[in-house]
């Protein structure tokens, strides 16, 4: 047992929780209208509660339990049976199995929480709850097993995803797009963003995401070692590069740099460096940040308006697109000099890695899209995914929760 590693992984777990609450709750909460801010915070908060229990009861076993034909984990670890304070050599050489389990729990929590951005301001709370539970069980848990589980087929194939570019960001991003298309636009959405009600909240949320992401990425080394430091540095550099690049691009394109742009760029940078952070050097991390800012800017500011789908808070535009950029970038910039357990990318003479990354990406996109479609149809038929028009107009805070965020008069 290594006390240093254990201390870092437990700390990193708390940092990853910080990303969902309050990070994402404030990031998304500031972007919606004042009548819906509590609905976002409620969704983020409840995901933490519900998925934590799902993970303990059976989710962790599905994702990391003993392998069943590379597809899923067996249910041997239901209720954390056999998972304890001693290390499991498969996943956590120097740290308690519990530490690995709770670190992974925080990833299972934030992934469905990212999708909130797609159905914001119009989803029925009961439907959201059922959808989230089904999506985590039938999309996230299998994907986590494929990429990270011992025996998982993508891991066996050699796909590189250090901290969750495919598992977390591509899967949630593409599911977000499918949901936005199936659910339809918000009433009054007219191909241009609805004005955010509290940008300081959004900036606060983005800043908390940035801080928490060190746990997400550097924690994924599962040790307090050089690789963790590499991931920490590359994460920071890519984020810094993406934040300033986005602001510069919109300065050039729209005439002014904005804080919402810088914050969005930073999040895009965090997303893109996620799969790459433990395989690339800082210089290439900077390039990844610059590339993803430009690509996501095009996706969010130009493509979304052209196609007219209402990905309300850009869950697809930032996480889906950014995760895709990061997955490809890992296939380009990865090098064994950084991480001997990884592989060389195309720029270091290994074109095969780019092929493996592309294949993993395509399968993930197809799997997440089809499953999201099916789950949506089931929940929509049983409960109805969208609130009634009148409720959407009054706002989800009052109609779904009977509470208001702000008083106009005491």
């Amino acid at each position, binding site marked *: 047992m290594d006390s240093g590693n254990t201390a870092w992984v437990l700390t990193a777990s708390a940092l990853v929780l910080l990303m969902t609450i309050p990070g994402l709750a404030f990031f998304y909460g500031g972007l919606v209208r004042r*009548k819906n801010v509590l609905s976002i915070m409620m969704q983020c908060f409840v995901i933490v509660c519900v998925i934590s229990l799902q993970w303990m009861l059976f989710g962790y076993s599905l994702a990391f339990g003993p392998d069943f034909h590379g597809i899923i984990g067996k249910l041997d670890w239901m209720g954390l049976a056999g998972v304890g304070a001693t290390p499991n050599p498969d996943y956590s050489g120097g740290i308690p199995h519990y530490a690995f389990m709770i670190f992974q729990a925080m990833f299972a929590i934030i992934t469905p929480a990212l999708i909130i951005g797609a159905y914001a301001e119009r989803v029925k709370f009961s439907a959201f709850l059922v959808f989230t539970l089904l999506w985590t069980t039938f999309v996230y848990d299998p994907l986590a097993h494929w990429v990270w589980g011992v025996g998982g087929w993508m891991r066996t194939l050699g796909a590189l995803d250090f901290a969750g570019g495919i598992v977390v960001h591509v899967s949630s991003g593409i599911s977000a797009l499918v949901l936005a298309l199936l659910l339809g636009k918000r009433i009054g959405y007219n191909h241009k963003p609805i004005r955010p009600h509290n940008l300081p909240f959004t900036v606060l949320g983005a800043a908390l995401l940035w801080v928490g992401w060190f746990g997400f990425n550097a924690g994924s080394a599962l040790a307090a070692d050089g690789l963790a430091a590499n991931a920490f540095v590359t994460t920071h550099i890519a984020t810094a590069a993406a934040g300033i690049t986005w602001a510069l691009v919109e300065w050039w394109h729209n005439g002014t740099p904005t804080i919402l742009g810088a914050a969005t760029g930073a999040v895009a940078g965090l997303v893109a460096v996620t799969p790459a952070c433990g395989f690339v050097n800082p210089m290439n991390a900077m390039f990844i940040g610059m590339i993803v800012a430009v690509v996501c800017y095009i996706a969010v500011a130009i493509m979304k308006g052209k196609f007219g789908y209402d990905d309300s808070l850009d869950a697809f535009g930032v996480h889906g697109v950014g995760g895709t950029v990061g997955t490809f970038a890992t296939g380009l910039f990865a090098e064994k000099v950084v991480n001997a357990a990884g592989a060389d990318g195309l720029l270091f003479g290994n074109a095969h890695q780019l092929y493996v990354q592309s294949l993993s990406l395509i399968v993930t996109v197809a799997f997440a899209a089809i499953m999201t479609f099916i789950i949506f149809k089931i929940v929509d038929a049983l409960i109805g995914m969208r609130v009634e028009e009148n409720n959407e*107009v009054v706002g989800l805070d009052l*109609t779904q929760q009977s509470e208001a965020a702000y008083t106009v008069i005491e």
Partner: protein
Amino acid sequence: MKLVIAIIQPHKLEAVKRELEAVDVNLMTVTNVLGQGRQKGVTEIYRGAKEAGGLLNKVRLDIAVNEDYVEPTIQAINKGAHTGSVGDGKIFVVELAECIRISSGERGGLAIG
């Protein structure tokens, strides 16, 4: 001169503004207000304590116009804010005794436009 006061659904503000601009009414003051009419309020719950009949958010527009513009203004607001259900709001028209533009000192009809 008349003062047109409209109480409308907040989400209809954009549409009303568009309709007003279409009839060349471009000057207005907009405020957030609370109100209750036939629509009745909503129930709010805080730690189990129920508060029935809470007031609903509305938007109030204050528009000062010359006589020729009174009817077009009313029509435009109606067009933008009408859905046909309770809660659409109300329009009040009141006499306006005087209007002064602070920057120039102009008064009356000149100051309104």
